[in-house]
């Protein structure tokens, strides 16, 4: 009895290290807030501003819908082409980077390429490409291609590293060539996950393609930023609503593609499922970056 009471108290007693951690965290918050000159007056003034700002956002102004749809279409094109290029390039790169298939001298350089493609935000990569290939959609396409290589390449290489080697062994025992092993023993094991990465990346590219325009790399982002700088807030609101609609449609399409390729669904089944499960949204497997 005594031991059990003591045990229960030990469970309820706050952990000394957790307390220390919380204290340090609090100290950091105070320090960082002081560093950033965030004051209550500023917050209060901002909140006062917010009502005014929201008033100017609504109602959204769709009168320049031609410019709007042109920008959205360009964003869509950037996303499609960047995803295509990114997928095509990251397939071989992912293979080379997989340490269970390739010797170290081949996989390390490929891993280095993938890591450096991942380390910068797409918008920063877009700045460099705007300088290299000029303003316009091409810079956006190249920037998002780099981002796609970083993401798909990394996850694809990890998926290959996790495959079961039994099939590889079996196919190798039949005297298959290296390419034969890849096609028959490796690819079928990672295909479903690869489709998942690709649809996810298409979705993510669509989100970012609406943003690279801020630095001049094409798409709706340029229009958005220009409208914002002109204090043309009702147009900003129209652009934002359109971007969100585009992204939600993209997310839906990605879910359908995954259902068709990964779960082997047919159109009829999808229609029935939609009818029977109205309200429950299909889950996404990742969340970006």
């Amino acid at each position, binding site marked *: 009895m005594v031991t059990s009471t003591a045990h229960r108290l030990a469970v309820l007693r706050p952990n000394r290290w957790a307390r220390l951690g919380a204290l340090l*965290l609090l100290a950091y*918050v105070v320090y*960082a807030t002081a*560093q*950033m*000159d*965030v004051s209550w007056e*500023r*917050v209060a*003034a*901002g909140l006062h*501003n*917010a009502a005014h*700002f929201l008033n100017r956002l609504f109602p959204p102004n769709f009168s320049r819908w031609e410019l709007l749809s042109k920008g959205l*279409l*360009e964003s*869509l*094109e*950037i996303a*499609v*082409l960047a995803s295509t290029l990114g997928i095509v390039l990251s397939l071989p790169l992912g293979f080379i980077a997989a340490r269970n298939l390739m010797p170290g001298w081949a996989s390390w350089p490929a891993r280095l390429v993938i890591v450096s493609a991942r*380390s*910068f*935000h797409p918008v*920063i990569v877009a*700045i*460099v490409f705007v*300088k*290299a*290939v*000029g303003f*316009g*959609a*091409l810079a956006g396409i190249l920037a998002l291609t780099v981002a796609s290589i970083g993401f798909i390449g990394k996850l694809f290489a990890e998926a290959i590293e996790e495959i079961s080697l039994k099939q590889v062994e079996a196919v190798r025992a039949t005297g298959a060539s290296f390419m034969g092993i890849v096609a028959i023993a490796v690819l079928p094991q990672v295909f479903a996950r690869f489709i998942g990465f690709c649809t996810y990346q298409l979705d993510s590219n669509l989100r*970012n393609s*609406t*943003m690279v325009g*801020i630095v001049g790399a094409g798409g709706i982002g340029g229009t*958005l*930023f220009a409208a*914002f700088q002109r204090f043309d*807030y009702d147009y900003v609101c129209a652009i*934002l609503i359109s*971007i*969100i609609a585009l*992204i*939600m449609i993209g997310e839906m399409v990605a879910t359908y593609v995954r259902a*068709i*390729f990964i779960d*082997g*669904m*047919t*159109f*009829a089944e999808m229609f029935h499922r939609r009818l029977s499960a109205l*309200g429950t*949204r299909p*889950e996404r497997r990742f*969340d*970006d*970056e």
Partner: protein
Amino acid sequence: MNDVPATHSWRRFTPAQRLARFTVYLAIVAAIVTSIQTVEIIPEFLSDAPEQVADLLRRMWPIDVAYYPKGVHAALMETIHIASLGTLLALILALPVGILAAHNVCPFTPVNLVAKLILVSSRSVNSLVWALLFVGIFGPGALAGTLAIAFRSIGFVGKLFGEALEETSRGSIEALAAAGAPWASRLSFGYWPQVKPSFWSIALFRWDINVRESAVLGLVGAGGIGMTLDSALNLFQWNRVATILAAIFFVVILAELAVTFVRKRII
């Protein structure tokens, strides 16, 4: 179940499945072809790209190391503060929303739907857009950046935390309920110990993402190193740009190493 005729040829997919796949392939090809045909690419720009890249590298080298202490360091620290404070704020705000979104913790479907709507709208807006909105409200500066990071992260943290809550096992919670524990005690002694590891892992993951994202918020005026980058870009000071990019690269790598280290130690 049916008798299979001797001449039956086995196929992996049914005709309906093949139709669905074929439609997707067709749509992909159509999308790529129309995109290539309609996208505006100026060939002249493409042809002198190598020259421009060489020029860029020549202007970037040597990188302006002397600029780091006077111009970059403070902004870099501000970026890290934006990412960290934004993540903390998001954690505080996302905890209740995540709890309300989990059906087993909060068994009221309308409340779940409202919480999920909050999470979806937070995630559908890019952090740069959140930054634009907060710059409009609070004016340029780190406050707008911190709020942008926080509002973008609520959806991410809340969604994953809510899912973690929904995956908890019923055992200990039923035991607590049987002992007459109130809702708050069930939450802190039944659910929390089960989701604690995933909560901290979500927090670390999001902080890592936020360090990357906060570096670009300055491009729209929301504070941090992006503002320094923007002014260096506008003045064509490419050797300073190179310094800033190197600093960002370094911090991103350090953050990733730190996250890996902490995750190994704690979780």
